[in-house]
């Protein structure tokens, strides 16, 4: 309990600082009321030891005498806080409470103006008589600068247990909001992770244009077949090991896309076709060389995507008559603009995405559970614009077959005419020339 004295000696006497009760309360994590008493005690002991070494400022709260006394003291701050009164008859009798800061040498004078004082305490102490309010402001600011410690939260005088923050939806929303722009540029880079690729076992890739409608129906059904697929294919060849641990951040979320090239090596015949189909789907109409960063480790790719994003943003902002921009301004809900504001945090968000897995079973060396993935949903709004929305959805996975959709894709491959598969095979190793494959498909 005595450490407040050393703190005050250090700050007030040595460092010539003004210490308010809030600063003391936050610095030592004591209750504000206790801090007020500490200040008083320190002031008292110091003054008896050496008069004039510290000066106190008091906070007064009470009802002033009815004659409004205008004193020239700049320290007096009135906070009229009259109680609401409904009865017009005694309008004049509404007590007007005044909150005032008073220097200690003027305390007796000021008190004389008060009818009642309901509360008085030491507000701050400093090495000099407080003439300038800015010193107090500085002290207040430094008090605010002391952030809450999670382990030892500062004691509050009044708490509110009903406080609501948009935590659950908010965090999910933030992730969703952070993602879109990233994905707009990356949409072509990692199209496999979008929903459309998954429900494709039955129809041939040519059915692509119809897909947007399908997925717009709902995002959840898309996960269901997958869960089944994952359950059905519990014990595939363990070719994909934990080497994915090097792939972090976003790549984890997009692990399907990341793993595809590897798959291409092991079962070269099947996957390329699956990889090609989404290219058809992504009709955002931008250059496709974004595919290149795909196989790289997550760190670089996320950095790159960030750069791309900024690039794209700048391009957008500079181009005055770009239609894209108009589209942007018209259709999007406010959340699409938000990422721009919280750009600095976007990176952190991306890193956090790694944690968005809930592992349910870890038996026999394999991890299974759910993870959060971004799904793309395209709907037509009432003005006839196509609006693409990124939604986060849960998708179950198991460690050993990191691409949960791999099995269905295999099936796709088998059902796909060999010609298409062959074409895909050619396209995959290059990783480029997608435009050609896009055209040749038709």
């Amino acid at each position: 309990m005595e450490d407040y004295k050393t703190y005050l000696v250090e700050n007030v006497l040595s460092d010539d600082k003004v210490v308010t009760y809030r600063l003391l309360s936050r610095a030592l994590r004591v209750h504000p009321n206790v801090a007020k008493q500490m200040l008083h005690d320190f002031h008292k002991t110091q003054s008896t030891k050496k008069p004039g070494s510290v000066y106190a400022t008091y906070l007064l709260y009470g009802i002033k005498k009815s004659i409004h006394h205008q004193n020239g003291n700049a320290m007096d701050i009135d906070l009229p806080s009259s109680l609401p009164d409904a009865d017009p008859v005694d309008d004049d009798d509404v007590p007007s409470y005044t909150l005032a800061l008073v220097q200690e040498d003027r305390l007796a004078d000021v008190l004389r103006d008060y009818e009642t004082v309901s509360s008085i305490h030491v507000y701050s102490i400093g090495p000099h008589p407080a003439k300038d309010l800015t010193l107090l402001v500085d002290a207040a600011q430094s008090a605010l600068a002391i952030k809450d410690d999670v382990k030892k939260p500062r004691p509050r005088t009044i708490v509110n247990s009903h406080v609501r923050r948009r935590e659950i939806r908010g965090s999910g929303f933030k992730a969703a909001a952070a993602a879109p722009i990233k994905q707009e540029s990356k949409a072509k880079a990692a199209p496999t992770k979008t929903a459309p690729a998954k429900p494709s076992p039955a129809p041939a890739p040519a059915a692509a244009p119809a897909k947007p409608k399908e997925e717009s129906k709902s995002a959840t059904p898309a996960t269901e077949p997958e869960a089944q697929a994952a359950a059905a294919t519990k014990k595939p060849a363990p070719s994909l090991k934990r080497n994915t641990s090097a792939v972090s951040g976003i790549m984890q979320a997009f692990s399907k896309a990341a793993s595809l090239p590897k798959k291409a090596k092991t079962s070269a015949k099947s996957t390329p076709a699956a990889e090609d189909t989404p290219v058809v789907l992504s009709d955002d109409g931008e250059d496709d060389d974004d595919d290149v960063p795909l196989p790289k480790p997550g760190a670089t790719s996320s950095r790159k995507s960030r750069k791309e994003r900024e690039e794209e943003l700048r391009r957008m902002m500079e181009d005055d008559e770009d239609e894209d921009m108009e589209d942007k301004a018209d259709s999007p809900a406010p959340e699409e603009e938000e990422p721009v504001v919280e750009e600095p945090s976007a990176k952190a968000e991306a890193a956090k995405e790694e944690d968005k897995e809930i592992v349910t079973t870890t038996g026999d060396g394999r991890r299974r559970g759910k993870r959060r993935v971004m799904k793309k949903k395209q709907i037509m709004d009432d003005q006839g614009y196509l609006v693409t929305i990124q939604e986060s959805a849960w998708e179950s996975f198991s460690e050993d077959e990191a691409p949960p959709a791999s099995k269905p894709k295999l099936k796709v491959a088998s059902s796909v005419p060999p010609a298409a598969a062959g074409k895909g095979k050619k396209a995959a190793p290059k990783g480029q020339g997608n435009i050609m494959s896009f055209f040749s498909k038709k």
Partner: protein
Amino acid sequence: MVTLDEVLGSGLLQKPSGHDAPEALQRQITNYKPLQTFKLEKTRPYQQQYADIYFLRLTKIRPAVEAAARAAWEGTVLGGEKVKRVERVLDVRQGELCWVAGTVYMDMPLKPSILEDVSKDRWISAPTSIGHYYSGNGDDSIMLEDDSGRIRLVGNALQDHFMVTGCIVAVMGTENTNGEFEVIDLLFAELPPQPERWSLSKGKKEESEDVEMMDASFSGHPSKPPSKKIAIVSGLEFSNADTSYAMELNLLLEYLLGEALDPSTQRDELSHITRLIIAGNSISTTANETTKAAAYDTSTLKNKFQPQHKKYGYDSSSYNPIPSQLFDNFLFELLPTMPVTLLPGALDPANASYPQQPIHPAMFPQSRTYMSPPKVGVGKDGDVPEAEEPGWFDNVTNPWEGEIEGWRVLGTGGQNLDDVFKYVESEDRLGMMEAMCRWRCVAPTAPDTLWSYPFQEDEPFVTKIVPTSSLSAASPSSARKWSRGPMAKRSD
């Protein structure tokens, strides 16, 4: 009279006892239900004519005015002549004693006139800087109009009432030889019925048995237990340049947080403040003006050497984020213990015309986590069912209507009152607020001198019910930067 000895040694002027820190107090809560009366659709057109507002207002309020007039004047005989009702303003016949209802139009030379703007080819209208439209030399005239025509009103009876453009009145009198209407008596719609308490937020009745307590707080008897309160502030005007009242803002924050003052006050008073309503003008723009000017100076210099990075003609370097950051910090400190309702004001970054729409959440990077989440993937607000729960930090429209603990509250940022103030000679702002309630119109001077949205289907400024308490902010009479206390008006 309080002496030094009385206060010394009491309460907090003691040594710390060394006991455990006192328990944190629990802040009381009030039931809160905002209304969306003044919310506009995001995709609102501006092509319509303003005339519809007057028409709608007249149709909505005229029945009430005529009912009041009928009750007062039916069967009245003056000078051997019976008072007749006249349907339209144009039907008034010279020499006949009659009464008619219509909209008041004030013709004032000092008032900004759209016709003048058009005739002089001024298409960009600046906000008026005139303090008063009232000239006081007899140039002003009062007209009564409806969709048929207009007639000039004269007579001493007019002196007894506040009157502004747009309010609906019924007048009794005769037309004189000059074609003017000699007013003998004049009536307003008077106060609309007051809503039952808890008329919106039902089901909460049981758990809050504080009807009595609420009354206690209104009459302010110290003997009764203190009840739930709301705090109302306006004109915080967080500013970058002017820090002269930064300490006041700090004290206000400490007061609201309940960190200041002694335990008994904290318990009995501060913990009962259940909600903060910020009624406009939270961010000061005066500082921005000067910095903006400075920024332009430097930018012209710079232009010679390097290309200016301008986007859409907006110079981002002239933007000063500090006032809004300070405001955001203020709210972020406060929000963990107290819900906040934020109305925009004349100085705030919202649209300038009435009704002002909520300040965009992007202004509050920290505090917006307490807002209700934005609707995802919807362009229009109109389609979305109302959020089941209002945000802890609720940014609302100005004017704003809501129900707090069952009591209907109507709040404005004060522009409507300021504008009415310019029409009349009086300084009695409270009286004007009362008059607006009696006119049954929150913003009668819109759209004449108060900028407003051209409403087409509905005229939301017409009050169907009288608010239990109405508050209007930004009155310059408070020399201090904030004023508090709902001017409660009861109509029984």
